[in-house]
C-alpha cells in the first residue's frame, strides 16, 4: 500500500503546479482505511442482527399454541364406573380419557363415530396430552364427573404447525403430515370459533416430552434456578473473601503470586474441562448423583469464581487509598477499614461483576453435558439433589429433534434464555450507572 501511494504520488507530481507530496493519494488511502473500519463494525453488527432476526423469526410463534375448544362430557361410565369418587383409585387414573375428548370432537364436527376414515383424521387433531389434562381436571375436582365442561385442549403438534403455516400444503397429501380431511376439519372448527392460537403457558410449565405440544421448559427453568442459587450462595462469598485477602491483606510473596497467575489462567480454561473435573471429582469421587442440579451448581461455581474474583479485585482497587488512610487514621483496624469502608464502596462493582458472571454461567452448556444433565426429566425437581435439566441443555436436546414444531420451540426457548440474560445484563448496567462512583 505504501509503494502504491508513492508511485501515484509521483505520477500526479507533474500535473500539479506546486511541489506535490501525493496528498490526494494519501487522503484516498486515509478514506479507504476509515471505510474498512466502518465496514468491519457494520459487518459485525449485521451478524448480530441476522443472528437475532433468524432466532426471533423462527421462534416467536412458539409462544402461541393452537388449541381446540371441546364440550367434554365426563361420562361416569368411563371415568368412575364404580361411582366411588375416589381420586386415587386405579379405575379413575387409568380411565379412557382420550375417548371423552374424541366423542366431544365427533359431536363438534358432526362425524359419524362409525366412519373409520373420518374418526381417524379427527383423532389426529388432538394431542395425546389430553389424557393427563382431563385426568388432572377430574382428580382436582371429582364433582365434574357426569357434567359437561368446556375445555381448551391442546392440538396435535402437526396440526399446530399446519395452523401456523409452517407446512408446505402444495405437497402431495400422502407425503404431508396433515391430511386434507384434517385441514377441512380445522377450518370447520376455526369458523365455529373452537380452534385458535392461545398463549402457550405450557412452554414455561411443562417438563420433557417427546411430543412437541406438551414439551416445555418448566423443569429446565427450575433446574437452572437451583444452579444459579448455588452459584450465588457459594461463588459470591468465596469470591469476595478471596479478593479481599489478595487485594488488602496478602503479603507480596511467591504464594500470592502463584494464586494470582492461577486465577488468571483459570478464567481462560475451556469450560468443558470444568465438566471433566465435575465428573471426576463430584460424581466419581464424592458420589453425588448424576444429572443433579447440585453438581451442576458446584461446577458452575468453580467456573464463575475467577470472573467474580477478577471483577471484585478491580472494584476494590478502584476505591482510593485515601479512604483507607482516613479510616486507619481514626483508629480502625485493618479488618474494620475493609469491612466498614472499602467493601461498601466497592459493592456496586462487585454486584455488577457477579451478575455478569451469573449470566455467563446461565448460558453455559458444555460442562453440564458431561455431568449427565442431558436427561429426560418430566417431573419438577423439588431439591437440588433430584435429576433436572438446565435451560441451555434443554435447548441442545430440542435442537436434535427432527419435527418442525421442535425447531420452533427451540428458537422459542432461546428467546426465553436470551430474555433472562438481557434482564440480568441490563440490571448490571443500571447498577453500574446508578451507584458506581468515580474518584
Amino acid at each position, binding site marked *: 500500500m505504501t509503494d502504491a501511494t508513492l508511485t501515484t504520488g509521483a505520477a500526479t507530481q507533474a500535473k500539479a503546479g506546486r511541489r506535490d507530496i501525493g496528498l490526494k493519494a494519501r487522503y484516498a488511502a486515509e478514506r479507504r482505511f476509515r471505510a474498512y473500519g466502518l465496514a468491519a*463494525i457494520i459487518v459485525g453488527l449485521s451478524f448480530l442482527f441476522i443472528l437475532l432476526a433468524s432466532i426471533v423469526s423462527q421462534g416467536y410463534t412458539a409462544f402461541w399454541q393452537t388449541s381446540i375448544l371441546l364440550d367434554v362430557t365426563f361420562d361416569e361410565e368411563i371415568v368412575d364406573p364404580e361411582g366411588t369418587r375416589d381420586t386415587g383409585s386405579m379405575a379413575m387414573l387409568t380411565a379412557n380419557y382420550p375417548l371423552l375428548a374424541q366423542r366431544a370432537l365427533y359431536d363438534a364436527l358432526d362425524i359419524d363415530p362409525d366412519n373409520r376414515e373420518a374418526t381417524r383424521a379427527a383423532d389426529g387433531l388432538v394431542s395425546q396430552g389430553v389424557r393427563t389434562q382431563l385426568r388432572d381436571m377430574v382428580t382436582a375436582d371429582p364433582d365434574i364427573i357426569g357434567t359437561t365442561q368446556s375445555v381448551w385442549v391442546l392440538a396435535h403438534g402437526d396440526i399446530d404447525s399446519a395452523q401456523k403455516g409452517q407446512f408446505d400444503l402444495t405437497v402431495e397429501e400422502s407425503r404431508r403430515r396433515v391430511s386434507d380431511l384434517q385441514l377441512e376439519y380445522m377450518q370447520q372448527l376455526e369458523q365455529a370459533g373452537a380452534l385458535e392460537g392461545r398463549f402457550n403457558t405450557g412452554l414455561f410449565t411443562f417438563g420433557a416430552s417427546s411430543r412437541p405440544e406438551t414439551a416445555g421448559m418448566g423443569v429446565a427453568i427450575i433446574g437452572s434456578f437451583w444452579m444459579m442459587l448455588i452459584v450465588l450462595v457459594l461463588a459470591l462469598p468465596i469470591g469476595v473473601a478471596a479478593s479481599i485477602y489478595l487485594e488488602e491483606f496478602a503479603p507480596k510473596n511467591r504464594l500470592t503470586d*502463584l494464586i494470582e497467575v492461577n486465577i488468571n489462567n483459570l478464567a481462560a480454561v475451556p469450560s468443558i*474441562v470444568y465438566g471433566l473435573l465435575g465428573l471426576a471429582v463430584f460424581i466419581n469421587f464424592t458420589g453425588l448423583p448424576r444429572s443433579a442440579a447440585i453438581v451442576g451448581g458446584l461446577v458452575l461455581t468453580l467456573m464463575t469464581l475467577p470472573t467474580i474474583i477478577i471483577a471484585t479485585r478491580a472494584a476494590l482497587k478502584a476505591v482510593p487509598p485515601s479512604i483507607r488512610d482516613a479510616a486507619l487514621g481514626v483508629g480502625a483496624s485493618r479488618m474494620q477499614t475493609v469491612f466498614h469502608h472499602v467493601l461498601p464502596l466497592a459493592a456496586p462493582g462487585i454486584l455488577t461483576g457477579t451478575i455478569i458472571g451469573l449470566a455467563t454461567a446461565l448460558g453455559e452448556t458444555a460442562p453440564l453435558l*458431561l455431568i449427565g444433565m442431558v436427561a429426560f426429566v418430566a417431573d419438577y425437581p423439588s431439591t437440588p439433589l433430584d435429576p433436572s435439566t438446565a435451560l441451555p441443555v434443554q435447548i441442545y436436546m430440542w435442537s436434535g429433534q427432527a419435527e418442525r414444531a421442535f425447531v420452533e420451540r427451540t428458537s422459542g426457548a432461546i428467546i426465553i434464555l436470551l430474555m433472562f440474560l438481557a434482564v440480568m445484563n441490563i440490571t448490571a448496567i443500571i447498577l453500574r450507572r446508578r451507584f458506581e462512583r468515580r474518584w
Partner: protein
Amino acid sequence: MSVTTLVAIVLVLAAIGYVVGLQRARSVVGGETAQLHSRPGYYGSYVLVWTCLPALLVLAVWAATAPIVIENQVRASFPETVQMQQSPNQQNLSMNMVESIARGLRLLDERERTQATAGFVELRPLLAEKGVALAGNGEDYMIRSALLLNRLTDANRLWRSIAVIGFSLVGLGFALVQIRARLRARNRVEAVIHGALILASTVAILTTIGIVLSMVSETGRFFSSVPPAEFFFGTVWDPRFANAEDPDAAGQFGLIPLLAGTLYIAFVAMLVAVPIGLFAAIYMAEYAGSRFRSLAKPLLEVLAGIPTIVYGFFALITVGPFLRDISAQLAGITTGDFAAFVSATSVLTAGLVMGIMLIPFVSSLSDDIITQVPRAMRDGSLGLGATRSETMRRVILPAALPGVVGALLMTASRAIGETMIVVMAAGVAARLSINPFEPMTTVTVKIVSQLTGDLEFTSPQTLVAFALGLTLFFITLALNVYALYIVRKYREQYE
C-alpha cells in the same frame, strides 16, 4: 437428629451466644463500654465463633468418617464363608442389599418386625407391601447385618448429636467465662476472619490441583491400556464401543485427526474474527465519535454475551443450510450440476460462526491495547504531518504489536476450547482433510460424545475423554501463559 437439624441447632445456639456474650460484656464493665478493650459486638462474635466453629468442625469430621466405620463393621458381621468366597464386587452387591433391607425394616411395626426377622422368605413379601422391592437372591444373614446396621446408625446419630451439641455448649460456656474487660476480643475474631479469607483464596489453587489431579489419574488409567505413542501420534480415530459380540474390540485412539480438525476450525474462525475485530477496534479507537462509540461498542459486545449454544443452533439451522444452498447455486451456475459442494456441517460453517462469536473478543482486547499506546507517540506522528491511517499503520500498530499478538493468542485459545458450536456444526466424522467444505471433528466434540449417555468408567472408550481433556487443558494453558507474559511485558514497556 439429621445433619440439617444439628446445623440449625448449632446456629441457634450461636445466635444465643452472640446475644449473651454482648450482654455479659456490658455487665462486666457495669454498662461503661468505654472500658472494654473492643466494641461490645466483638465479644458477642467471640462467643458466637466459639459456639459454632468447633461444633461444626466436629460434625464435618464425624459425617465424613462415620459411614465408613459403620460399613466396615457391618461387613465384618458377614459370615466368614461370604467374606472369603465373594469377590469385592459381590460383597458390594450384598452390602447394597443389606442397606435396602435395613431401610425397609424401619417401615415395619413391632409385630411385623418379629415376623420378618425369621428369615428372608418371610421378609420379602412384607417389605414389598411397604413398597420396598428386593431382588430375589437374599440370604438370612443379611437380616442380621441389616439389624446391626440399623442399631449402629441409631447409635451413631445419638452420639453425633450429643457430641456436636456438647461441643457447642462447652464452647459457649468457655467463651462466656473468658469475657472480661481486658479480653482482646476484636483481635481474636479478626484472626478467625483472616483465616477464613486465606481459606477462600486457596479455593482457586485447589481447583487447579483438582483439575490436574483428576485428569492425570484418569489419563494414567487410559495409558495403561493404550500406549501414549499410539494416542499422540496415531492418525486414526475409531474408538469402537465394546459390544456384546466382540468384547475385546480394541479401538484406535489417534489424536492427530482431532487436533487437526480443532486447529483448522480455529484457524478459519480467526480468519473471520481477526480482520473484522481489528478494524473495528481501530475505528472505535481512532475515528468514531463518542456517541457512535457509546452505541456501537456495547452492541458489538452483545455478541460476546450470547451463549455458545445459541451460536450452535444458528449454525445448525441457518448458516449451514444457507452455505449448502449457496454452494449448490454456485455449482449450478458454473458446471450446470446443482450438487452442493459444502455440506451442512462443515469446517467452514463452524469456523464462520465461531469467528462471529470471537469478533468482540478481538475488538475489545485490541481496543484496550491500542488506547494504551502513549498519547505522545500519536501526537508526534500527527504533528509531523502523517495522516491518521499512516499514524495507525506505521506508529501505533507496530508499537502495539506484541500486545495485539497476545490478545490474538488468547482469542485462539478460546477458539480451541469452544465446544457447543463445533458439537452442533462441525460434524462427528474424525478425518484428516484439507477441504474446508467437509465436516471434520474436534477434541471437544469427542470429549462430549465419549462421555454422554450411560457409561462405565473403566473402559478406554470413556477414559480417553480425560486424556483429550488434559491435552486441551495444556494447549490452552500454554497459549494463555505465553499471551499473559507478552501482554504483561508490553504493559511494562509503556508504564
